[in-house]
């Protein structure tokens, strides 16, 4: 296309600055949100992976277990094998910092081995210290990030929790090889085993292979030597695990951004369509002057592409800004807690920038496609006639694409049945997109149908507005498509979040039946109760009885994060919200005699087990068979959890430690008094003492914070939907000024014209909102039953916030009426005299 023609088309964007700006803004927002999510997440993963690589150093293979570890005898066995050149034993633990949030990663290492295998972990003593400070049992070396994180006023001494006691280490130097954001401490392995009650245990062995031995060969030959539950894998595997862990959450956020982009595409569609309608005579003239269809089509697509490109570039800038702000304010974690504590820095990647710019352009072109195609089909002669534009408004998109809508519906249902692809519910997302498409396609029909139902008003304003919508349902598509998309998004999220929240609330009620809870630390960290500590709890006045929970980790599937193994009393029947199976330990139809295990939904999904089947669990280096007695709902451990009886666990493992204690108080005793008494027994810094109400409140607060980002995105989508109403009515009012002028001649007052526009806007929005609410309900169902189940493996009870949705819908309709009226005000203000003289 020659430059003059390019200018001819591009200049039209400048003539409708408001509409172009709104479409551009919407695209920019969609691109920015998607890009920011990706940038933040990639930087976090990158940082995580880099940390992992540094720790693994030059190791070819790693022997790993969950945090529970394995016997150090394995190290001796492996070190003697001819396939191994070097083996470096590691005890890794998350040390709880008394009185501080979070934990510090401490690596117990063999100083002589680490130099050959993981040079980055090599500690360097401060000048004043002896050369072999690393060998002394009470010293630790901290990376720069760990110094910032863990050290308070008392520089030179690190205090960490072990069991329910505090141990102090002298900080003897630094770990210069650790990456910038890596908070970790390094100490002698024997000292660490001693200090944290892990004598004789390791969590990892890093291996360097002998020359000529390939990784595959080594894995084949060494695997038979490993106890059950211990894996031999390449160091990169842990990075992959982290990626798998947070992928579902990231994909969910990206999909929200995609919907913002989609709404932006709708907005381009609205503005382009209206602009094309208004310029019909112009195009007819071009065509009469000899412009061919192809040039016209390309010219109009170019307009969309320019809007998309500008929006895409603005979105790239905005996305980097969002990501930089997020790194500064909240670090690398997007609210779900996967990368807490990581402080990555912003990276520029030409590939990602190119991709997101292209996405913006694609949204612009896609939005412009239908209007452009429509314009080329118009015959030049009919386009030149007076009233061509108005005829096009009425004629356009009148037909519901019934067959298309039906096809979308059917395909959507089918997509819901598809299994997840690589852990991502691709079918679910496709179904969401199809549901949206279906909703937009039935919009003309819905408009006609509602107008038939609503044929009740007598007033002239009502009659005119009603007749307009009934005769021009295409107008509803143009104005309402954005509303449908954004309302569907908002409603589906509202239903999903509300269902989730109510389910979490119910769930918390079930899992927290005791009066008081004591927690030494979470599953992986260094705090625990021993027998002495439990005695102290039991003997506290007012305590009726206690139940203990031991939580550790086991590896059940290679390449997936470990599953939490929970050992506790189940037969008392409290605190396990079953979705299938039973709590009774002895079932009548059970002939196996195996001990029972209860799987969380995530674990059941991943292992593909149902009640009645057999499960083998690696405990203390041996495989043990269990019978799956039931499946329970767990919102706390996304990687899955298995509950087994406390006594069974103790018998198999010999592990008597306890993480949590649930306390029932003597009837008539105040819970507060018991809590106070326990606080005197244990230091507040070392043990969390909480009442179920507090835990519940805190959990719901965390829940709300996690979903804050989705509320923000919803608000943005709604705003974009209202932009659609505004730009459509501004454009339509200009196109219809002849009509309004005539009505003024016939004696309608300005106020009545204003009411007419507002009523049309309100009715259009009402139909859009109605269709959007129905579509949103469907999408909510997809999100709950397909997307959540497949990405997070948890079920929830559907709970529709009717009152909230009704208020939201009503508010949106009123807002749309106001927006339409404000946008159409120009048409009301315009002199009726001028209006009727124009040959429209």
């Amino acid at each position, binding site marked *: 296309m020659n430059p003059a023609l390019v200018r001819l088309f591009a200049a039209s964007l400048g003539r409708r600055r408001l509409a172009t700006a709104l479409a551009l803004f919407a695209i920019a927002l969609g691109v920015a949100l998607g890009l920011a999510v990706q940038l933040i997440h990639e930087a976090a993963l990158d940082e995580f992976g880099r940390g992992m690589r540094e720790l693994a150093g030059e190791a070819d293979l790693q022997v790993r277990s969950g945090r529970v570890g394995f016997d150090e005898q394995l190290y001796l066995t492996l070190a003697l094998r001819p396939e191994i050149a070097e083996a470096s034993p590691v005890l890794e633990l998350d040390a709880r910092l008394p009185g501080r949030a979070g934990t510090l990663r401490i690596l117990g290492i063999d100083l002589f081995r680490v130099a050959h295998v993981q040079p980055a972990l090599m500690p360097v003593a401060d000048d004043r210290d002896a050369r072999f400070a690393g060998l002394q049992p009470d010293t630790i070396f901290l990376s720069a990030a760990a110094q910032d994180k863990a050290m308070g006023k008392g520089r030179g001494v690190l205090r960490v929790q072990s069991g329910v006691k505090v141990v102090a280490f002298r900080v003897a130097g630094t770990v210069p090889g650790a990456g910038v954001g890596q908070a970790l401490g390094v100490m002698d392995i024997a000292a660490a085993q001693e200090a944290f009650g892990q004598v004789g245990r390791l969590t990892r062995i890093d291996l360097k292979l002998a020359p000529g031995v390939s990784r595959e060969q080594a894995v084949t030959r060494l695997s038979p030597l490993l106890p059950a539950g211990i894996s031999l894998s390449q160091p990169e595997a842990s990075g992959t695990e982290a990626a798998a862990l947070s992928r579902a959450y990231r994909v969910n956020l990206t999909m929200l951004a995609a919907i913002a982009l989609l709404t932006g595409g709708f907005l381009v569609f609205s503005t382009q369509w209206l602009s094309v309608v208004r310029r019909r005579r112009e195009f007819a003239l071009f065509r009469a002057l000899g412009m061919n269809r192809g040039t016209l089509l390309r010219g109009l697509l170019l307009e969309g592409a320019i809007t998309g490109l500008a929006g895409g570039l603005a979105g790239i800038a905005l996305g980097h800004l969002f990501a930089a702000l997020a790194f500064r304010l909240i670090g690398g974690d997007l609210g779900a807690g996967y990368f807490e504590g990581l402080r990555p820095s912003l990276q520029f990647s030409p590939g990602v920038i190119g991709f997101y710019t292209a996405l913006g352009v694609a949204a612009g072109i896609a939005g412009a496609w239908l209007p452009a195609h429509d314009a080329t089909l118009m015959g030049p002669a009919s386009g030149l006639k*007076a*009233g061509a534009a*108005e*005829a096009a408004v*009425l004629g356009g998109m009148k037909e519901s694409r019934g067959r298309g809508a039906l096809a979308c519906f059917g395909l959507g249902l089918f997509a819901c049945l598809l299994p997840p692809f690589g852990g991502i519910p691709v079918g679910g997302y496709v179904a969401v997109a199809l549901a949206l498409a279906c909703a937009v396609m039935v919009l003309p029909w819905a408009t006609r149908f509602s107008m038939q139902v609503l044929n009740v008003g*007598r*007033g*002239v304003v009502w*009659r*005119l507005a009603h*007749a*307009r919508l*009934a*005769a*021009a349902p295409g107008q509803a598509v143009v104005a309402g498509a954005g509303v449908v998309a954004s309302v569907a998004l908002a409603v589906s999220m509202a239903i999903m979040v509300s269902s989730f929240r109510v389910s979490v609330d119910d769930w918390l009620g079930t899992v927290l039946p005791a009066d008081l809870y004591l927690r030494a630390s979470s599953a992986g960290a260094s705090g625990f109760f021993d027998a002495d500590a439990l005695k102290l709890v039991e003997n506290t006045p007012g305590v009726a009885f206690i139940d203990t929970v031991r939580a550790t980790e086991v590896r059940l599937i290679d390449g997936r994060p470990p599953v939490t193994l929970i050992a506790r009393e189940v037969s008392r029947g409290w605190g396990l919200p079953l979705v299938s199976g039973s709590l009774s330990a002895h079932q009548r139809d059970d002939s196996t005699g195996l001990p029972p295990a209860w799987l969380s939904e995530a674990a059941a999904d991943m292992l593909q087990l149902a009640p009645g089947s057999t499960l083998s669990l690696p405990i203390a280096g041996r495989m043990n068979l269990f019978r799956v007695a039931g499946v329970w709902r767990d919102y706390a451990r996304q990687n899955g959890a298995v509950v087994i009886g406390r006594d069974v666990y103790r018998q198999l493992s010999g592990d008597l430690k306890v993480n949590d204690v649930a306390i029932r108080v003597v009837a008539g005793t105040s819970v507060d008094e018991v809590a106070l008494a326990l606080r005197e027994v244990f230091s507040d810094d070392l043990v969390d003492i909480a009442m179920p109400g507090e835990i519940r409140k805190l959990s719901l607060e965390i829940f709300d914070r996690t979903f804050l980002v989705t509320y923000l995105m919803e608000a943005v989508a709604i705003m974009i939907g209202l932009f659609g109403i505004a730009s459509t009515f501004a454009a339509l009012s200009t196109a219809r000024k*002849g*009509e309004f*002028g*005539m*009505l*003024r*001649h*016939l*004696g*309608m*007052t*300005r*106020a*009545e014209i204003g009411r007419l526009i507002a009523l049309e806007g309100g009715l259009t929005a009402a139909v859009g909102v109605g269709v959007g609410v129905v579509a949103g309900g469907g999408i909510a169902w997809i999100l709950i039953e397909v997307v959540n189940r497949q990405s997070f493996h948890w079920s929830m009870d559907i709970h529709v916030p009717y009152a909230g949705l009704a208020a939201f819908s009503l508010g949106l309709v009123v807002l749309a009426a106001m927006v339409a009226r404000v946008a159409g005000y120009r048409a009301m203000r315009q*002199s*009726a*005299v001028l209006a*009727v*003289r*124009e*040959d*429209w």
Partner: protein
Amino acid sequence: MTRAEYKRRRPSGTFRVYDSLESMLKIAQLGKTLATAPPRKLFELLSMEVGAGECVAIIGESGVGKSTLLNCLAGLEPVSSGSIRVGDTELAGLGDDALSQLRRDCFGFVFQAFHVLPHLTLLQNVAVPLWLQGRHGAEADRCAQHMLERVGLGTRAHDWPRELSGGELQRVAIARALVHRPIVVLADEPTGNLDPARAMDVLDLLLSSIRDGGAAGVLVTHSHAAARRADRVFELRQDGLVQVMAAAQ
């Protein structure tokens, strides 16, 4: 004239025939100065009376202010000086809403570009002025149907405007202009968009309808052929309205 009085004088279903001496529209010493810099005098000292059942045509060169005069008569543009009386009502000094009410009750309009609403059926289009007066349902439909029959489109009441030719659209517009029995009908180039053969038919229909309805008709046109069909013809000049053709009796 208030709306109540108007209704009293016009019992529904009958066409009151006014005495042709009774003037329905009377302008006196009318002047219009455009608020340009410097102010430009468009016209001044215009005087004219139009009786019931009488049609006058106003011709003049382009830019002389014919359409502006028509807009002033309809209360859509303020005048700079002089007076306009419609029936017993003086337009000068009325507010926007009062003028709207007056147009609703006392005026009918025919436009060059027809301005038939594409999203209403012919019957609904014709009924709009009745709706505006608060008359709905069967009665409004009956009046509109009656009016459509008078303009020869009685069988097409439920058709859509897009199915009509230009001449037919203007017939609908004429029906709409007269359905509520206005006392003044203003027509701006009513045949401007029509081919000559159709134009004269439509014009005859318009004029006879105005006469039958006992309204005062004011027709602004370029076309001398069209103007000759009116009862009197005025030429608008900057210094006044000059009658160039007397009543053809």
